[in-house]
């Protein structure tokens, strides 16, 4: 074994009697996480539906990967009704949030969901994506920040609103979170409407130093958006648009 002064950084480990000791195991764990560009192992709080796994694996075998290698699994947070839908049977409409003067509250926003040709669309899945930013002060308040996010459907001007989804969000860092809105978007389509008005309220955000990013011209890259997967209800033709 070379002496310390002349050894190189890439030299192999010295022979040890018990290579499987705790430190070595921890080093290997850290190595795996760093290669996967993760700080910690993900916290899997509830079991993954087998149907979701099967769908993901089918997509993998069919080569339907996104560029970053991810396989999109619809609604893993307990709404697994659409796992059987293959990607080629649906299409995606992505709509970015807007706001105008008719919306009285700063927490109000709306989406115009394009439906060219006024086709009879069946919504198989719709998710609202919201970005939550952790303020520097939040980082000093411990590692877990649980907030409750409520998304309301709102009639502009009238003021009446009803709760569409309520979700407890556990924030470890700034990032995107999804909120299922399938039924609400389906209702918009079935009424022949294109506009979805929403009001987003976050309980505990202020206290925890968390800011949900709504429509903000200074932060366009975190603008809320709505992803709708739909197909024409009568003849199942694909809708070739995004």
């Amino acid at each position, binding site marked *: 074994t070379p002496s310390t002064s002349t050894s190189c950084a890439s030299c*192999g480990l010295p022979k040890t009697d018990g290579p499987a000791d705790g430190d070595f195991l921890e080093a290997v764990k850290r190595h795996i996480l760093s290669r996967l560009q993760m700080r910690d192992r993900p916290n899997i709080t509830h079991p993954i539906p087998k149907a979701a796994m099967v769908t993901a694996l089918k997509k993998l075998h069919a080569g339907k990967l996104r560029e970053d290698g991810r396989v999109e699994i619809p609604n893993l947070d307990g709404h697994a009704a659409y796992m059987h839908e293959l990607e080629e049977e649906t299409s995606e409409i992505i709509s970015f949030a807007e706001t105008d003067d008719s919306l009285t509250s700063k927490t109000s926003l709306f989406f115009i969901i394009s439906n060219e040709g006024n086709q009879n669309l069946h919504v198989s899945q719709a998710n609202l994506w919201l970005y939550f930013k952790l303020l520097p002060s939040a980082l000093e308040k411990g590692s877990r920040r649980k907030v409750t996010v409520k998304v309301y459907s709102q009639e502009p001007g009238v003021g009446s609103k009803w709760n569409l989804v309520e979700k407890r969000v556990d924030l470890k860092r700034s990032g995107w979170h999804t909120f299922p809105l399938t039924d609400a978007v389906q209702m918009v389509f079935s009424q022949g409407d294109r506009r979805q008005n929403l009001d987003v309220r976050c309980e505990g955000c202020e206290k925890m130093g968390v800011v949900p990013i709504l429509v903000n011209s200074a932060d366009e890259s975190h603008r809320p958006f709505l992803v709708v997967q739909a197909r024409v209800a009568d003849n199942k033709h694909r809708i070739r648009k995004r």
Partner: protein
Amino acid sequence: GLECDGSNSLCCRQQFYIDFRLIGWNDWIIAPSGYFGNYCEGNCPAYMAGVPGSASSFHTAVVNQYRMRGMSPGSMNSCCIPTKLSTMSMLYFDDEYNIVKRDVPNMIVEECGCA
């Protein structure tokens, strides 16, 4: 490359397998079921340094260039290093419950040699 079998102290590859079930990582790593965290260990005497085939690494090429130019770095110690690494394909859940498939290059030490 030599496999470590305890019979000598020369540079060799020590196999080390971690079963994800045993460390409680099988809930987020779908495949594979474990990881070969192999590593290199052992001594590199002078006659083993730069042996073609067993240590065809970049480091060896550099040292050989010095030797060809008559600038043999005689005082340079030889190291037991990975000379062949392979890619590991992983299927796992990330923080957002996405299933991610990633081919991680240079993840598994396949061969060790002296350089």
